[in-house]
């Protein structure tokens, strides 16, 4: 739970997509989802395909009607035009009007968000520079590559200076350089205090930029927490040594378990209270400790194990 007033509050949200002529049979895409997102944070939404991530975002944006539960943005009911004016959205696999230039698209969507042309024109050069599209802004969208469309898509989501930005797979189809640029944009928004809600399959990216993460599967939230909370320490420590004896194993005898030699030192499973003793023993033997890394479960490993556990 966040302490400040939440930007996004979702309570027992559910969505069933009707099937058949009478829509009696259906597919439950969201089932009792509750979460809160505070201002100024970067919130990650993770989950396998069909987990309900995009459905959740679309309900919050008024693109899909909810079947049950409640949701609010900025304390106001979702779907309200005034609320949507404070939101930016980059959809997954979005399609921009091919008959407009990049600059015209940004201007169109900025004006649709209620901003006047002067405001947009003042903000445009900085934004184009930020997404790396200054040189191509006057070409038509239909001439753009997927990565360029993604960048202009991001610019249209930010043109009206939203307080909350939803990014659905923002780096989809973007090359590594572009991906890094988009990551930079997100971090700059975060620095400025804009709240960001990211839905991505690229876990490394989420790990790098998100403060909090929610993991969803089969329409339900299965875990929520900070990156640190979701990626616990494994208890394994890696030592990089200099001036170590030929057999460092003898030095650690009686401490920890699962000793394993590495090129520059060794790795060992130790409890927190044994770690000090181990360092003391190495120092007493005049071994220089050049590095010490307490390893964690990475987000991908944590994500896979959580999803597999729920699927069992």
């Amino acid at each position, binding site marked *: 739970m966040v302490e400040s007033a939440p930007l996004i509050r979702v309570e027992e949200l559910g969505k069933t*997509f009707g099937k058949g002529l009478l829509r009696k049979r259906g597919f439950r895409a969201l089932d009792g989802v509750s979460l809160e997102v505070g201002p100024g944070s970067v919130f990650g939404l993770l989950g396998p395909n069909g987990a309900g991530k995009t459905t959740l975002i*679309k309900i919050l*944006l*008024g*693109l*899909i*009607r909810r079947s049950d539960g409640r949701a609010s943005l900025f304390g106001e009911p979702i779907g309200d*035009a*005034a*609320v*949507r*004016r404070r*939101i930016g*959205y980059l*959809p*997954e*696999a*979005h*399609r*921009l*009007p091919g*008959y*407009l230039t990049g600059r*015209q698209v940004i*201007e*169109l*969507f900025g*004006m*649709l*968000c*209620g*901003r*006047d*042309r002067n405001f947009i024109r003042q903000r445009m050069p900085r934004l184009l520079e930020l997404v790396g599209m200054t040189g191509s802004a006057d070409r038509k969208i239909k001439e753009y590559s997927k990565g360029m469309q993604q960048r202009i*898509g991001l610019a*249209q989501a930010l043109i009206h200076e939203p307080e909350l930005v939803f990014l659905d797979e923002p780096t989809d189809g973007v090359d590594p350089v572009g991906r890094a640029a988009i990551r930079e944009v997100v971090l700059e928004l975060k620095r400025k205090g804009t709240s960001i809600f990211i839905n991505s399959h690229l876990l490394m990216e989420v790990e790098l930029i998100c403060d909090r993460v929610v993991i969803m599967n089969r329409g339900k939230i299965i875990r929520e927490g900070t990156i640190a909370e979701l990626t616990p320490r494994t208890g394994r420590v890696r030592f990089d040594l200099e001036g170590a004896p030929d057999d460092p194993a003898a030095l650690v005898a009686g401490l920890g378990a699962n000793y394993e030699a590495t090129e520059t030192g060794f790795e060992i499973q130790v409890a927190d209270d044994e770690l000090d003793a181990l360092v003391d023993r190495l120092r007493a033997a005049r071994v220089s400790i050049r590095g010490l890394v307490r390893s964690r479960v990475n987000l991908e490993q944590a994500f896979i194990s959580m999803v597999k556990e729920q699927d069992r």
Partner: protein
Amino acid sequence: MNRNTAKALLRDAYAQVVDNMMFRVLMVLLMVCVLPTFMIGIREDAFVVLHFWRFPYEEIAAKFGGSEPISDHLRQQIVAGLQAGMVDLLAGKMGVLLSVAATAFFTPRMLERGAADTIFSKPVSRLALMLSRYVAGLIFVSILAVVLVGGMHIGLLVTSGYSDPGFLWSILTLIYVFAVMHAFSTTVGVFTRSSVAALLLTMIFFLLNSCVHGGWELKETATNGGSNVHVRVEGLQPEAPEKVTEEESRLVHWLIVTSDVLHYTLPKTGDAPRIAKRLRRGLEERHKELADPGRTDLVIDTAPAGFTREPRSSLVQEGALWICQQPAGAAEATVRLALRPLAEVEGRVAEARKFLSEREADPASTVVDDGRREVAGRRAEFVEWHETREAETRLRRRWYFQSGVEWLLILDYDAELEWASAPEREQALDTFLAGMHFPEIDDPFQNPHSYERKFGFDAEWKYNAWFSIGTTLAFLVLTLLVGWWKLSRIDF
């Protein structure tokens, strides 16, 4: 929706139109149609090509063995025919269908996955977004209609010296027809989210719609034509009507009711050229001395020279009356045109004969001429007599002629004999008679009982242009509301 949003949607609609390949192709085709009006002038006496080469009508006629010069009236008819052919047939039918084809994808494309997510997440109502695509279609057709109709009007004015401001009404009627078709296409687009389905269903709907109205008009012409014709042939007994079984009668009744219901509820796009024609005629008739649209359809270009029309006189009651003050001592000269339903009299010829007999029996009258003449392009029974009253001899003339099979028109001329016998008076009367015509009835393609003839802004409700426009616009609004209802229920 604030001003910025509205502006953005309009600019987007315009950008979508001008980027459309079909729009550009149609624009080029229209230019091809409009350019000749700037290049070829149909002047009073000759065709003039590029303001330089003259081809006199007489020379052209002589080449084809003709000798009659082209009258100004014929010249105007040629130009009006060209305009009507271009606008009613080419643009009104083919052009509108091509425009529907070119704009059918506007709405479905907006609703495609990816495009819809981006635009519908913005703080703009779904109705506004749907209407923006609808307006894009209207912009598409409006530009083309203005280029075609406006271009032709200017071209004919500049090169041929022909001005018919009423022709500009066609811009509105072209947009009107398209607006209805596009509303249907937009709504089908919302339901199916498929451009192909929107296009095909719109075409099918309007084909069926045309059949419904065509059938209804035929039914109206058949049922009304039979009851209003009064033809009597001596010695011929009317045949006994064939017996109709109860089942046949029920089927006919059911067909008539179905035809009526469908006709009254579906959009009457086929009326658009008629509306344009009525509006155009309305403009023309403002400058005429007398016009009786929707009843006799008689048009009189000018009053007899020297005569002034009594402002309160009308065709229906005592007749339209023109008066000219005579030299001192003589009673005023009058021209009176009266109207009688043919159903209430014995017929044009019989009435004229009866009247002739009365004149011959009247001791104050001396019949000087009688027989058949031509008035307003049709046969007229004519009687001329001198009438002596209180030492004054008057020249009296009477013409009986018909408007279709419903109205008998009686034209009376009464003036002091000596005054009326002057050549300039005779000429003035001839000019007055030459300025009488029935442009509507004289259209060779029109049945006198047809819907086309009865249609007008003052006609009874089922032939009334306002009823036609009202029901058509109601259909348009209802169609868009259904589209909006569906759009508001779509989960993107």
